[in-house]
């Protein structure tokens, strides 16, 4: 008896690990299914447009506001440090590189997971709980191609757009703090930025990052919703898992992508 209870933590651990791996496999299968069922959503593009409205346009306000403030804080903090070394003109470079390379894609993805990801999970979870997905199946309509795939592609389209808007608005916020407020020379602000921000290595890489994050966040949100137990509790814990899993995935993926991009 004693032996058994001592082994229990080990067994729980093993159980958890196998469950994670099982879910990973199920998620990958779901991802594959979504990809092969995507044909119809491109033939009926208005399905995707509708979802871009819900995931992208409705996330716009939160993206705009947070980008603006993130840019302003960056400029304040950056100026504080840079002026000690007498290079406060480099503030434009600092703000732009930080936003375009990292904060734009990453913060957008985190906000997206909280705003759009949870909405997607809850919606799909409830559709499943109220048998709407079953009903669709019985009407000989594939819910993956009719419900999942359009939302997936909408997320993949919306994320880079949101991230790009985030970076640009953040830079404008940084400009407002640096130039009119602190009094850095506007010419130096922009020209230093242009001299040091590379189109291919910084801006395009940032967009690539946000595309990958778009795939990851949307897929996680959809899978959690689709996989949620059809109860109120199941849907609510799935929504929580969406935020946790997407955030962790985004941060880990960010490291992996950055290390690839820097070594190339």
């Amino acid at each position, binding site marked *: 008896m004693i032996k058994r209870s001592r082994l229990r933590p080990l067994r729980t651990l093993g159980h958890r690990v196998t469950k994670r791996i099982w879910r990973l496999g199920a998620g990958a299968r779901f991802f594959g299914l979504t990809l092969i069922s995507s044909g119809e959503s491109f033939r009926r593009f*208005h399905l995707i*447009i*509708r979802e*871009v*409205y819900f995931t*992208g*346009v409705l996330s*716009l306000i939160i993206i705009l506001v947070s980008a603006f403030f993130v840019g302003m804080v960056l400029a304040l903090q950056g100026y504080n440090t840079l002026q000690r070394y007498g290079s406060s003109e480099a503030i434009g470079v600092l703000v*732009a590189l930080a936003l*375009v390379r990292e904060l734009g894609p990453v913060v957008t993805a985190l906000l997206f997971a909280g705003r759009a990801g949870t909405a997607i999970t809850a919606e799909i979870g409830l559709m499943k709980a109220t048998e709407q997905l079953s009903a669709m199946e019985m009407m000989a309509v594939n819910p993956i191609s009719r419900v999942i795939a359009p939302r997936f592609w909408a997320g993949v389209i*919306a994320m*880079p*757009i*949101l991230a*790009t*808007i985030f*970076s*640009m*608005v953040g*830079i404008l916020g940084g400009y407002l703090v640096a130039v009119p407020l602190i009094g850095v020379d506007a010419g130096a602000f*922009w020209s230093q*930025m*242009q*001299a*040091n*921000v*590379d*189109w291919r*290595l*910084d*801006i395009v890489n940032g*967009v690539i990052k946000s595309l990958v994050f778009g795939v990851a966040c949307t897929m996680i949100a959809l899978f959690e919703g689709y996989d949620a137990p059809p109860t109120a509790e199941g849907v609510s814990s799935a929504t929580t898992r969406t935020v946790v899993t997407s955030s962790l995935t985004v941060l880990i993926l960010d490291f992996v992508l950055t290390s690839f991009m820097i070594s190339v």
Partner: protein
Amino acid sequence: MERTTIDLWVGIFVALGVAALLGLAMKVGNLTTSKLGPTYTVIANFENIGGLKPRAPVKSAGVVVGRVGKIKFDTETYEAVISLNIDKRYSFPKDTFANIYTAGLLGEQYVGLEVGGDEAKLKNGDKITHTQDAIVLEKMISQFLFNKASENKDDVSSTKASTKSADDGLTANPLDQINNKGKGAAAPK
């Protein structure tokens, strides 16, 4: 919600995204400033490139005329082989000098082209034979100290003379290297 309203909003959304990307490209990034037209590539060998990186600017008379392409290491001559992508609008004589300079005391390194007097122009795939290595600060200091030490041995006590020869050491040595390189590169091939 009406489909047309949704379409309108999504249209605005996408337009905003495109505008932001254009803003990043034009105002923030170097897409406009560093945009090179079609380029031709010339090769230059250096014994030491210091901290030169790919995509570093290639300047002549202070104007950016190209970018550093690939940086390779030649296992036979033990030299760095650098390809320079130069804008087709600019052509340079065959005997152009390629130097590695540092912007400011600790800034980034770039390749400077100093124009020679040859009639023939550099073409795609040509090799610049006259090169000058990056100045490595530690090397310079150790040379300076070495020269000073050897002068003291020779009992040259005049401070004026010692500073003078130290100056010579600083400037003369790199020139020697260039001359050697010029011979070396001309002889084998």
